[in-house]
Structure formats: structure tokens, C-alpha cells
């Protein structure tokens, strides 16, 4: 029982991280209709920025805020300077630019701060004694912090999309860019804000996960998280916020349970098995669990 609770908690924590990054992917998809392959590496890069600031004796919280700002600026700049010009040509070009960013940002981080593993301090209490006991299992402060961050973020995003003018405009652009533009929405600014927002969310995911990740902050840290997050976003249907959250947590828990209880899978096949399950789900529901089906015409 204790072991079960422990695995469940670990799964929930990992799942919350996947959900955070999946939210970033969904925001981009809603704005631009593409999967941002570079989202994980963007988060990695901003996390390196945060780590670098902490080595300059900046307090963790300041470093995190700075990382969020860098993420926002980078995301917006990428949309404006790299994505928009090629998007007019075709969709494949967008994916290839994103692949270029994927390799480029990763290597740039390695070039600026070398490839050794870094220790990113956690913004939450995570000493050996900072835990609460749940059903016999220990729940540490930074895991609770990730859950809290996810909940706050989901509330804020829901408020943004449902209650503010910018959110309304973002939904309008997602639904129909041309009609939105005709109705007076400044489409290009909304797209930039969308990408910027996703850059900032990705940065948040990065700085929160690295203290928890087994390999700390290295050049490959975000890779697995990005794959799980894109699976989570697709699972939920790519354009649904609650779908991303449900997808992320499902994948986190599935991973923890499969690697814990199915001995053939063990610690080595968890990515494979999680992805296989998602492919199977897509087979039954091709637009994800919460996605809207799109009709097409000749």
C-alpha cells in the first residue's frame, strides 16, 4: 500500500510537469496550428539562464522570474522572426524550422554553459526533512510545489481565456484568423503573445522540473519530458487545455504504474509503453480525447 501511494505520488508529480509543458504546446497549437518541436529545448535554454543567474548569486525566485521573461521574449521573437515568414510557404517548413531550433538551442546551451550536469536549486523547501506523510509515503516540498504551480497556472489560463479581452482575441484567432482580423483583432500581436506565453509556461516547467529530475540539469533533461508532454497534448487533442492536463497526469501515472508493476517493462521501457498506449488511444479516437474534430473540404 505504501509503495502504491509512493508510486502514485511520483506519477502525479511527473504528470504535472508533463501537463505544464503540454499546456505550452497547446497554447502554440491554438495560435498557429503547429506542434512546436523546439518547446522542450526552449524550456531547457531558459532553465539554463535561470541556473546561470543563481550562480551569479541571484535569489532563486528572481532567477525564475527572469527565466519566464526570457522565455516570453524568445517565444515571441521566434514566432515573429522565424515562424511567421515561413508559415506563408508551407507547414512542412514550420516543422523543419522547429527541428532546426531543437538542435540549435540545445547545442547553444551546451556551447554557452558546457555539457556538464548542473544543479538547479529548487524554489521550494526540498531538504530531507521537508515532507508530509501521505498514507505512509513521503511527499516532498518541491513535488507539492509543482502540483501547486500546475493548479495556479490552470486557473490563471482559464481566467485569461474566459475573462480577459486578450484571451477572447486569442480564442477568436484560434477559431478563425481571417474573421478575427476583419472584426478588428490585431492577429499578428495575438500570435506573438500566444508564442510568448507558451515560452514562459515552458520556462516555468523547466525550472520546476530540474530539481526533481534524476539527471538534474543536463542537455538531455528536457528530452524525455518533451516527448511525454507532446504525447499528453496529443492525447488530449492538442487544442484543449483540460485535455493537456488530463493527458499529462494520465501519462505520468501510467508510466509510474507500468514501470513499477509490470516487471518486463521495468525502468527501461516506460517511454515506449506510454507512447504505445497513446497510439492505441489515437487509433480509437483520432482527434484525441478532448479534441474537436475538424471537417475538411476539397
Amino acid at each position, binding site marked *: 500500500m505504501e509503495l502504491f501511494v509512493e508510486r502514485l505520488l511520483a506519477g502525479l508529480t511527473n504528470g504535472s510537469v508533463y501537463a505544464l509543458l503540454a499546456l505550452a504546446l497547446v497554447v502554440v497549437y491554438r495560435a498557429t496550428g503547429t506542434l512546436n518541436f523546439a518547446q522542450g529545448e526552449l524550456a531547457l535554454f531558459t532553465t539554463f539562464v535561470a541556473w546561470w543567474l543563481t550562480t551569479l548569486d541571484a535569489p532563486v525566485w528572481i532567477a525564475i522570474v527572469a527565466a519566464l521573461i526570457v522565455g516570453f521574449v524568445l517565444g515571441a521573437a521566434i514566432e515573429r522572426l522565424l515562424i511567421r*515568414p515561413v508559415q506563408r510557404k508551407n507547414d*512542412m517548413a514550420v516543422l523543419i524550422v522547429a527541428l532546426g531550433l531543437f538542435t*540549435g538551442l540545445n547545442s*547553444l546551451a551546451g556551447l554557452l554553459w558546457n555539457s556538464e550536469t548542473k544543479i538547479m536549486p529548487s524554489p521550494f523547501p526540498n531538504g530531507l526533512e521537508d515532507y508530509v506523510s501521505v498514507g505512509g509515503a513521503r511527499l516532498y516540498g518541491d513535488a507539492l510545489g509543482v502540483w501547486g504551480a500546475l493548479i495556479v497556472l490552470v486557473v490563471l489560463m482559464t481566467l485569461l481565456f474566459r475573462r480577459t479581452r486578450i484571451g477572447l482575441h486569442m480564442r477568436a484567432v484560434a477559431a478563425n484568423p481571417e474573421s478575427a482580423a476583419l472584426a478588428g483583432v490585431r492577429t499578428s500581436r495575438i500570435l506573438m503573445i500566444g508564442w510568448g506565453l507558451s515560452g514562459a509556461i515552458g520556462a516555468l516547467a523547466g525550472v520546476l522540473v530540474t530539481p526533481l529530475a534524476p539527471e538534474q540539469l543536463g542537455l538531455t533533461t528536457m528530452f524525455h519530458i518533451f516527448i511525454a508532454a507532446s504525447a499528453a497534448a496529443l492525447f488530449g487533442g492538442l487544442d484543449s487545455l483540460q485535455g493537456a492536463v488530463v493527458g499529462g497526469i494520465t501519462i505520468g501515472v501510467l508510466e509510474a504504474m507500468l514501470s513499477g508493476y509490470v516487471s518486463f517493462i521495468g525502468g527501461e521501457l516506460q517511454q515506449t509503453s506510454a507512447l504505445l498506449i497513446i*497510439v492505441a488511444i*489515437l487509433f480509437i479516437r483520432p482527434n484525441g480525447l478532448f479534441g474537436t474534430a475538424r471537417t475538411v473540404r476539397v
Partner: protein
Amino acid sequence: MTTTLPAPAKTRPAAATTRFTIVEGSWEHRGLRAAGIVVAALALLAASQLTSFRVGQFTSVFIMAIAIIGLNLVTGYTGLLSIGHSAFFGLGAYTTGVLIVQLEFAPLATIPIAMLLTFVLGLLVGLPSLRIHGLYLALVTLAVAVAFPEIVRRLEGLTGGAAGMVVRSRYLAPPEWTGLVRAQRGIWMFWLSAFVLVLVMLFARGLIRSRFGLMMRTVRDHEIAAAASGVGVARTKILVFGVSGAITGLAGALFTMYIGALSPDGSFTLLKSIELVTGLVLGGVATQFGPLIGAFAVVFLPYYTSSFTTGPLSGVLFGAVLIALCFLMPEGIAGRLGLLIRTVVTVLPPDHPALRER
């Protein structure tokens, strides 16, 4: 991905605007072709006389080119972005490796089996396209790319697991009928890869020009219109994935015979897929010679950049080159060369209307 690609310019410039017009099948056309073949053969001969290090580099170019030709069929001609081709490459490589090491197969005899297995894997990857479209299909290929190294690590008894697998060089010696001794494996692999590359290029050329090739391009250019005109969209995609997988798997089999040592994290991760995509885009998507040019670029660019810098910078350059290409030369090197040549020479089929005017 049902996306339109940076298609090679389809509009032929009118025959009158270019300086020379060559009719397909005429003696000039045949002569030029023969000259091209002679030049290529001479270049190969010259390359085979270089130092064994250079010969090895050329061998890896050829193997890479074969792998990229496989990718070109799916991504270039059918418009489905695959980031899973590292798995086909890896499955081909490991099939050959395992058969040689565990069952003492002759290296060449492993090739058909490697191609068969990668063909089946291709069908399996393509199978979801019955239901899944667009980005979702790219995720399936991503899943395959991520799963492959994990599965190799898991099947330790067969593959040597994370520690990797070494194929002893006595197994990889050139076959006796070549008259080459074991130490001449480099030159044997050079000619073998060159020969296979030529075969694969001819096969791809024939496939693209066939009825099936037309179906592939129709699916790429307009999936719904293709379906409306009676093209079995899902069937086409599944079959293309199979054929493409088999070709990339063939490249993997040659890779094992060339390199002799395999490890799951060495050449078979997602990064290999990105390398293949980079090579394809750089060389020219949906072109005949693009994969070869792209293979030269991805083998030699990191080699030359790493000679004056260290590791990560070549990754930055790779990324920057990939992005710059999308802006400056979306048709790739081969595509751009084709456009340049077309401003000077036009090749027309004998029944082209422009010829009748004269």
C-alpha cells in the same frame, strides 16, 4: 503530415526562352546521359584511390544517401514528415549485426532479411494512417524513434543491450569471389555501397515515375482530392512507409557491415532522424540527387566544422543552416541547381507541344 512541400518548380520555362532545347531520347540526350554516367564512374574510381580515411568517409556518404532516399519517398514525395527513420536505420543495422554474430550468417545474406523486417516495421508505422492524420502521424513516427533504443537496451541477450555489440572483423571480410583480402574491407565496402546506392537511385526514379509514384504525389499535394479521384490514400501511405523503411533499413545493414560496432545510443536515436531530415532538406526535398548531395553535407559539414571548433558549435551550425535553408533556399541544393540548369537547357518529351511550332 499532409502538407504541401517546397515543390520543385513545376512550370517548365517555355522552350523559346532558354538557350538550348533537348528532346528526350534524341542523340544529344543520350550522349549527355552517357557522359554523365562516365563522369560519375570516373569520379568513383578517383575517389577509390584516395587514402583509406577518405574512402571511409565516402562510404558513409553513400550509406547516408541510401537512408535519405528512403526518407525522401515518405517525406519528399508523399508529404509525410517522418522523424522515425532512425528506427528503420537501426533495425536494419541490428538485424544484420544479430544475424552475423548469433547465427553466423554471411553479411550479404542478411540484407534481404533486414529489408524484409524493416519493410514490415514500415507497414506497421504506416498502419495508423488508416485513422490518424497529420501531426498525429508524426507523433507515431516519434514514438518509434524513441522506442527503438529502449527496446534494444531491453533485449540484452540478443543485442548486447546498452553496452553495444561488436561484429568481429573476420565475419565482415569481403567474400572470396571478389579476390580481396580481409584488410581490404574498406575498399570492398566502398564499392558495395556505391553499387547499392546506384541501384536504389534507379529504383526510386522508376518508382516515382510509375503509376504508384503519381499516387504518392497526389496524396502529398491534395489528400482529399486524391481520395475523391479514387486513390487509396491510406493504402498508399502504408505501402510507402514500408518501401521507405526497407530502403533505410538497407542503409542500416550496410552501416553494420561498414562500421562493425553498434550501440543503441550511438547512431539510432532521434538525433539520427534529425540528421536525415536535415540532409534531405539541404540536398533538396523531392529531387533525385538531393539525398546524395545532402548526404555529402551531413557527413562533411560536421567534420570540417569540428576541425576548427569543438562539439556543440556544429549542432548550432546544423540548426542555423536548417533554419536559413527554409528562408533562403527551400528547394535545397539539388532543387536550386535544377532551376539554374533549366534556365540554360530545357529537356522536353518528344511529343511536347512547344516542339511542334518549329
